[in-house]
């Protein structure tokens, strides 16, 4: 696979040697496309990538971090498995004089000084944007909503929910979350738990659904259809504008989503680590534009994953 020789100090073709420490890869839809884009970009810029996948096991990622540092690369791209657990990795890299950029999930504020920059979506921001979509569609009268969460304990899921709830509290006081269950990023699980929440909370009491990604949004929509509910009557907001989600948005079954681009994410991770290595001065954050997608503009944004 890629960078089979990145272990050796000087890159064979003179390009930079970069480690990308990721918590997912070909085992997840997003990661798959993130990797594609990342490798493509690396090829363009002559970067030798060495990629690891910690499967969201932070201890494993910590060890992979020290492996990376031991092989003295020119730079490290770190997508934290769990943001709270990466301080030691960052400090070790700093001590070894290796620039580190965070990707996809930003580090904690107190660790910000240890990374060159962050590239990727503001997961918190994604949550906020979703809150906006829902808040606006519900209007001043607000209403009751349920959340279909990602895999329990997953940091992206946690960040999105946090942003979502903060934004609601800040700007949409009449919108109240009356139920929440994990959909494990899977359509079938989302389908079941949504249906069960509709049962227990009462279809009539639920005014909107926030599924933290489009796959689960699709599950929520199917749950309603199975019960003979017209999905347009209970607006669903997801995230990703994925191949699974976009058709639902276009057909109006899903009220809206947020376009998160793994391509942008992967490319810029490489782009900015190169700049960091070159010593360019960087902004603290390069946030991925996360446009709000609804029926109107969905066609302008081809799905990427």
């Amino acid at each position, binding site marked *: 696979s890629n960078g089979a020789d990145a272990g050796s100090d000087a890159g064979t073709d003179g390009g930079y040697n970069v480690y990308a420490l990721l918590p997912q890869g070909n085992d997840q839809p997003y990661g*798959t496309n993130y990797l594609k884009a990342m490798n493509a970009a690396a090829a363009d810029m002559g970067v030798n990538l060495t990629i690891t996948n910690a499967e969201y096991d932070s201890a494993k990622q910590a060890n992979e971090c020290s492996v990376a540092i031991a092989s003295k690369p020119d730079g490290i791209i770190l997508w934290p498995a769990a943001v709270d657990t990466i301080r030691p990795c960052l400090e070790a890299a700093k001590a070894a004089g290796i620039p580190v950029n965070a990707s996809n999930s930003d580090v904690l504020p107190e660790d910000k000084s240890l990374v060159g920059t962050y590239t990727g979506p503001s997961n918190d921001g994604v949550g906020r944007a979703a809150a906006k979509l829902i808040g606006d569609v519900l209007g001043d009268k607000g209403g009751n909503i349920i959340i279909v969460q990602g895999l329990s304990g997953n940091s992206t899921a946690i960040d999105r929910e946090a942003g979502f709830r903060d934004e609601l509290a800040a700007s949409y006081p009449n919108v109240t979350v009356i139920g929440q269950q994990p959909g494990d990023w899977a359509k*079938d699980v989302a389908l079941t738990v949504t249906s069960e929440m509709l049962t227990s909370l009462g279809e009539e009491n639920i005014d909107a659904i926030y599924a933290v990604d489009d*796959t689960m949004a*699709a599950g929520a929509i199917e749950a309603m259809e199975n019960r003979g509910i017209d999905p347009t009557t209970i607006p669903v907001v997801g995230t990703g504008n994925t191949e699974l989600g976009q058709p639902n948005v276009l057909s109006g079954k899903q009220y809206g989503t947020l376009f998160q681009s793994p391509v942008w994410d992967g490319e810029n991770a490489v782009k900015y680590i190169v700049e960091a290595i070159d010593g360019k001065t960087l902004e603290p954050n390069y946030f991925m534009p996360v446009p709000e997608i609804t029926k109107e503009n969905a066609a302008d944004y081809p799905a990427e994953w």
Partner: protein
Amino acid sequence: MTHTEIIKTPTLASTRGGSGNSASKMVAWVASRGIFIFTAVLLVFSAIFVNGFASSVNIIDVFHRASAIGIVAIGMTFVVISANYIDLSVVAQIATSGVILMALSPTYGVLGAMAIALFFALLYGLVNGISVGFLKANAVVVTLGTTGIGAGILSLVTGGTIYYGPTGGPIDAFGDARVGPFPLSAFVLIVVAIVAGIVLSRTKFGFMIRSYGSNKQATRLAGVNSGGVVVGAFVLTALAAMIAGFVLAAYSNTAVSTMSEGYDFRALAAVIIGGNSLFGGRGSIFRTFIGVIFISVLSNILVLSGFSFAWQQLVTGAVIVFAVALDALARKAEKR
């Protein structure tokens, strides 16, 4: 197990039939059937106290929870009763068949895709079965190995791609289909249960599996091709896992390489809660079926009652511990 009506066993009761003095006999009887009682109690309790449990829509959800995992558990019962503990590779097997169905039916048609899935199911069954049955390797380790290989390859080939079928397509139609108030998958579950039940309790092959689970050597020395019996057990498990993969994929009309995470231990949990013996020999498909219903209803009412994931795990684990502890006590009571 074979019963001999013509002979009565007054005092000398078999290890199976409870024991001498009627008190401990009672205990044994009740305890060894505890799971049936609990399931009944749980159902009644839920119907009365859990808002919305008895509604027809919810029954459907319960069956959706039960069908895929139930089919796997029923298949795994054969491996368990043959005293081989568990087939960990069902995780990889379910995902493989699900992904094949969704990914290949556009090109090869649903039946074509199913045929291909069948091929891989048999492959899994044979590799596991031959390694365990003929090379006498430990089943847990073997299936741990085949899981790594199978899941690894699946993930290499498909990445995290989510394969989805056309809405209203045959697969989607199957997933949404109802028979009366029940989802079609529920009937698949029941049919699989009945067939498996007959195979295990009534057929020669089932008898050999039970006998093998009870004493490998004696079974072999009775002229049974014991390796073949083990292969059979793993093939049956693989077939069940394949069907479960179809059902699971059809349910959500999607499939992805990670779709069946955790199905290995959850299925085993169902088998065990049903009161099947991990030492092999003793057990029945019906017990597994009850075990499946029990955990499905349990997780259903936990969600209905708004418990968080954390508490769901905690309660489920506690219930498993309780159920198996009771089963163990039952065994003790029988011995006494």
